[in-house]
């Protein structure tokens, strides 16, 4: 019996998001099919990786991770250059020093750091605050202005602070990360609010607040699958590319942090930790994630190798 290939007839597609300015631009989204099902529709762009850079020296990172950034962890510019050297598609600058419990650094200080990083690297920039909504609004407002015209991706916007961040993106020509905790309806609502302020749909990335492998991955996985199906069947409020903050979740897990001495039954730490980050990212890519914010250059490399294979057409 001959097999009639089963193809879904999708009516719509994911919007295309452009980050950065020529000649250093990254494009994501635009898919008219489920992830990597090339036989069903166009998949114009591969998922990309942003390596994370902090504006303060991180504490408690395992040596497996810090050893990749020896000597640069207290200098965001040098750190960003290192990421560029490793071949990151984008740099994700996390302004954690602005957190009141950290250095509580001012919006102006943050803007200066962002500017210095932007000038040092030829990579599009993602810039996010420390997660404290009110402070993030002030910080991102200053950063957006300092990076005016550079078409960055700024965040993370939540219901408490989306107005200021959206306005900043509108005035200074940036795109926005809209964060909502693992809920398809909350994601839609926030997108609607942002679009009501006239920021175009193709300037939004959805952040579903992912969990790491073993720590809630399945929730994010299913939210992404549902969002993609929504996008392909015409739900414009879910048709944005998805950004996944993978590194921050993975590198707090025991599986990534424990040494082989602490957990002998789990095998070599380097291999285990790299696989933890890689598999978290590849699983999200298989569910529809477009931008992976990662920490370790080796995980990035392994993620890329997998994606290169998945981007080879599988037409029948």
């Amino acid at each position, binding site marked *: *019996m001959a097999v009639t290939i089963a193809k879904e007839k999708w009516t719509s597609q994911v919007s295309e998001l452009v980050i950065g300015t020529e000649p250093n631009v990254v494009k994501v989204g635009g898919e008219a099919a489920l992830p990597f099902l090339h036989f069903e529709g166009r998949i114009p762009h591969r998922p990309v990786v942003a390596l994370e850079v902090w504006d303060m020296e991180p504490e408690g990172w395992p040596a497996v991770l810090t050893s990749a950034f020896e000597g640069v962890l207290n200098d965001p510019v040098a750190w960003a250059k290192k990421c560029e050297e490793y071949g990151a598609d984008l740099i994700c600058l996390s302004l954690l020093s602005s957190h009141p419990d950290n250095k509580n650094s001012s919006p102006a200080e943050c803007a200066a750091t962002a500017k210095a990083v932007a000038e040092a690297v030829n990579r599009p920039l993602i810039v996010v605050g420390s997660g404290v909504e009110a402070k993030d609004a002030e910080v991102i407002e200053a950063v957006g202005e300092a990076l005016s015209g550079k078409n960055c991706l700024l965040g993370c916007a939540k219901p408490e602070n989306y107005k200021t961040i959206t306005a900043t993106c509108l005035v200074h020509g940036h795109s926005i990360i809209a964060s909502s905790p693992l809920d398809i309806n909350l994601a839609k609502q926030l997108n609607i609010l942002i679009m009501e302020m006239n920021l175009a749909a193709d300037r939004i990335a959805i952040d579903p607040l992912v969990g790491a492998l073993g720590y809630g991955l399945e929730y994010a996985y299913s939210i992404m*699958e549902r969002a993609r199906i929504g996008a392909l069947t015409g739900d414009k409020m879910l048709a944005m590319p998805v950004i996944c903050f993978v590194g921050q979740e993975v590198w707090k897990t025991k599986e990534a*942090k424990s040494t082989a001495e602490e957990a002998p039954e789990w*095998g070599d730490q380097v291999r285990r930790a790299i696989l933890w980050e890689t598999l978290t990212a590849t699983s999200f890519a298989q569910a529809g994630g477009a931008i992976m914010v990662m920490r370790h250059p080796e995980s990035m490399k392994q993620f890329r190798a997998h994606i290169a294979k998945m981007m080879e057409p599988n037409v029948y």
Partner: protein
Amino acid sequence: MGLTGLEIFKQLPKTNCKDCGHPTCLAFAMALASGKASLDQCPHVSQAAREALDAASAPPIALVKIGTGSRELQLGNEMVLFRHDKRFEHPTGIAVSVADTEDVAAKVAQINRLVFDRVGQVHNVNLVALQNASGDAAKFAEAAQTAAGVTDFPLILMSEDPAAAEKALAAVAAKKPLVASATAANYEAMTNLAKKYEVPLVVKGSNLNELAELVEKVVALGHRQLILDSGAREANKVLADQTQIRRQALKRFRPFGYPTITYAVNEDPIQAVVDAGLYIAKYAGIVVLPTADPADILPLITLRLNIYTDPQKPIAVESKIYEIGTPGADSPVYVTTNFSLTYFCVAGDVEASRVPGYILPVDTDGISVLTGWAAGKFTPEKITDMLKNSGIADKVQHRKVIIPGGVAVLSGKLQELSGWEVIVGPRESSAIPSFIKQRWSA
């Protein structure tokens, strides 16, 4: 399943003889359609009708069993394309391959150790896939015997040479191994072997069309305990084929109504693990891979647990007092939520601190600390309730309770309601060992 009462009615004798206990054939058909009756109750139904109805009511993907006893692996009975539609039923069987040219006993011993504790459950690999790398039938049979002697995991006998498969089967058929594979070149001999020894069989095509044809031929020879292999070995093609097979099966294209097997054979050892992860997420009944390194297998087993968790039911633990070590009247008391993952993170870390303690997981309907707090299910009231009614006050002399750092905001209200002194612990339970050493005195 899937058939309407009227469709069933057409196949019945239509004599209304009432022998089935229903007033009419139509009433019986309706009862069948809603699952309230079984076809056996009608003694007059024809053989042809029975077959037609059985086929139509069979699940879209057959249930296939490999092995015997407590390690028996069940595959199939899947009903959906996406886990959010309902849930995935039978977790992918993870098979580690062993060549009959290597030290079989040593590698199998390594495989036996791939057993991990996660959220209070034991998770392990499922199969040993024995490859006839030597091409020698006697050597293969000997390896099968050796493997069967040192492991309870069911075997996959990987040989396309019927003579080698037969010799190995003669040695270990009682353990119900899976035979891989029947191909266009050998399917008659392989099917006869599988029938003779009553074992499941992999049917391997070089593409989807050939696979469908071969399955029909094997079924025509009378064997139905089948596992499908589309022949794809590159990750992008495996994804496409696995998707097609699952979609077609759910549309009741019968040749594809069986579980599948995939092989993670990427030359790069890390990429092989990554590919295996993809196959676990995307419908593979079995994934075969060469590594027995726990650093490779733990992430895959964890991914499988995530993907196959029922989306409607978070795994929860009972809300009661848990004693870690042998705590006494001066031991610390920790509160957390009854989400399994949360509880076992905390339990593992309290254990690692080597300071015996009590853990009180508050019933949050199985959700995590922050989710529970945000959803109003992990509240000062509920914690107070647990402190008062669990009996913990009889077990300890002190009145100090440690709460997760993520919900420090609860402390004032909790202290006021419960009268217990509230100590805010670290955000991550992994910091409990150092925290408790510095901060605890009763």
